[in-house]
């Protein structure tokens, strides 16, 4: 039941909130996050560690680790609500409709079973195939993800594969039941640059050929710039900016995105110093009032300290910054020296 392109989005996330109850009160790790992904689209989700990007991905695949829990909002896949499904129901959706790829390819494979065994098990869980048919499909998948000598490699164990090859196996596993959406959490972070390029090319090709949508969670702007159609920049549990990748990368609208882009060393000019964002992302317990980015922002005004901005349209992108509101950032405030 492939959705025609003009239909409602494949994945809809609305006002998602993820919280962690702790002894000192409840921490809101993902705060009112909304986005959607069209069939065949690659949405990049980028941000620093602790920004809530992986939690958002885990909430979608229903693998939030307790005590983390979805505290509000809804997640719809192909129009069907999936965030409140019972465990067993969600198990059927996960794997069949949503595939997952994680950062470390060694820990996402079982070291005690051959990769063929793991592929066949996954295929038979989700598809009504005989063992022989499942093995043929497993073999086809391994060939599709570009594993040389798939006929012999299918009986090998994870430790016999290199990092890049293991990640290919993990991708094959995610593809077993022909999912409509793949949630890829830092799929290239553990790999060398030369292997990284191979894996990204593979993901892109599979997306194109199968019309699979991908939610690509990463901290690497380079990977996003090359792979994603749209990108969401997350900061302290909220989306700071979301829009077509070209607009966000080249003409960022949010001061945080601008700072992030400036802090990546560039190959054209050798500058003496990189643009740096002073300070660090606040801890969840210490999120400032108003805009969460205001203590580090170079363009803040009085309004940023008290009122929290929501996403507002700026051209093709949407950014959560008062600069783009008619009221502006409010009165300028004198910045005390950051430090001596």
């Amino acid at each position: 039941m492939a959705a025609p392109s003009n239909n409602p989005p494949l994945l809809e996330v609305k006002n998602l909130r993820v919280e962690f109850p702790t002894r000192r009160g409840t921490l809101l790790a993902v705060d009112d996050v909304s986005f959607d992904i069209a069939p065949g689209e690659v949405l990049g989700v980028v941000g620093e560690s602790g920004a809530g990007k992986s939690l958002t991905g885990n909430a979608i695949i229903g693998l939030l680790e307790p005590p983390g829990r979805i505290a509000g909002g809804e997640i719809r896949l192909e129009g069907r609500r999936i965030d409140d499904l019972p465990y067993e129901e969600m198990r059927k959706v996960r794997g069949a409709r949503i595939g997952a790829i994680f950062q470390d390819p060694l820990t996402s494979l079982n070291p005690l079973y051959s990769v063929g065994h793991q592929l066949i098990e996954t295929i038979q869980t989700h598809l009504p195939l005989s063992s022989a048919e499942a093995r043929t499909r497993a073999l086809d998948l391994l060939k599709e993800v570009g594993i040389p000598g798939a006929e012999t490699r299918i009986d090998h164990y994870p430790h016999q594969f290199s990092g890049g090859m293991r990640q290919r196996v993990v991708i094959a596993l995610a593809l077993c039941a022909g999912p409509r959406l793949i949630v890829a959490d830092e799929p290239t972070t553990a790999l060398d640059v030369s292997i990284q390029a191979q894996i990204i090319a593979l993901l892109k090709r599979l997306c194109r050929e199968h019309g699979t949508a991908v939610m690509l969670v990463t901290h690497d702007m380079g990977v996003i710039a090359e792979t994603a159609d749209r990108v969401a920049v997350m900061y302290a549990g909220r989306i700071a900016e979301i829009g077509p990748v070209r607009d966000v990368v080249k003409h960022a609208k949010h001061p945080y995105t601008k700072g992030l882009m400036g802090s990546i060393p560039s190959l054209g000019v050798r500058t003496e110093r990189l643009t740096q964002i002073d300070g660090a992302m606040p801890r969840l317990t210490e999120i400032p009032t108003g805009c969460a980015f205001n203590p580090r922002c170079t363009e803040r005004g009085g309004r940023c300290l008290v009122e929290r901005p929501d996403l507002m349209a700026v051209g093709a992108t949407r950014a959560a910054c008062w600069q783009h509101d008619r009221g502006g950032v409010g009165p300028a405030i004198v910045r005390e020296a950051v430090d001596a």
Partner: protein
Amino acid sequence: MPDGSSGQFVRIAGLKRYFDVSAPWLVRMLERRPRQIVQAVDGIDIEIAKGETFSLVGESGCGKSTVARLVVGLYPPTAGRIEFDGNDMAGRRSGADMAALRRRMQMIFQDPYASLNPRWRVFDIIAEPIRAFGLSSDKADLEKRVGDLLRQVRLTPADGRKFPHEFSGGQRQRISIARALASQPEFLVCDEPTSALDVSVQAQILNLMVDLQRRFGLTYLFISHNLAVVYHISTRVGVMYLGRLVEVAPTETLFTRPKHPYTRMLLDTIPDLDMTGRQRSPVAGEVPSPINPPSGCTFHPRCPFAQDRCRAERPVPIAIEGGTVACHAIEEGRLPVEERTYVANS
């Protein structure tokens, strides 16, 4: 003791380090297995001038971290020599002489979560090199020194009372840098100092390192797999592949006129942030095992320009455009040097 006739601050010549990863003797005898030797570093020559930043790049397993550890003496070399300011590091000398040399070189490690003792207060972590080398006798002076060091890395003296877990990754890396500076070294070996950090924090640390270098005239040996970072910070760059240096060149030359096919391949893999539509050409193949490296030029199985000579004969580095390249194709002139231009991020 030979003095540094070359005038170079750090001189590494014919450096080799092999690791024996064989099974135990009995197993080897019973199963008739041969010894297995990893040639982690297989004969490299590097010269680093005072005040410059020399970077080593390469994929994981190419031996760049082993070089870092060899240089500071954490591993003894299998062969070759390391000279530091004219002193042969392997030469026999008294413990006091050795300590005097060691004081002048320090190391910054990749993982700021693993390289700080979690049970020590930051003050003690930073004071340790000062105490170990006997650089300060009274308590007031020690406190002043540690306070100054903390301020130099943009922390406050009050942070000295805290434990490492109270700091973020970037702040911990600042503490490692303060510790490395505590013995007033002249030479810092930095093994992937920013690869565990987020990009905005990475920029802070790189800026700090550049500031400190200018202020104290430090010399850096910088190990990284991130070519954009290397481009930003280095004076000269060495590209390593399977324990050998395939190309050494001044930074600008290496990035705009790369010569070795492996260097070109690495440059091709830099993600395109400028959205020029340039496709990263994924390179086929992976780094072979350093236990059984390919014959001749170790890069030949992945090299599009490989010929019979490359499979048989190990190329020797030849001098070219202010650097060196170890490649038969370049030497024979059948591989023209390629010009590359980059568009700056706006």
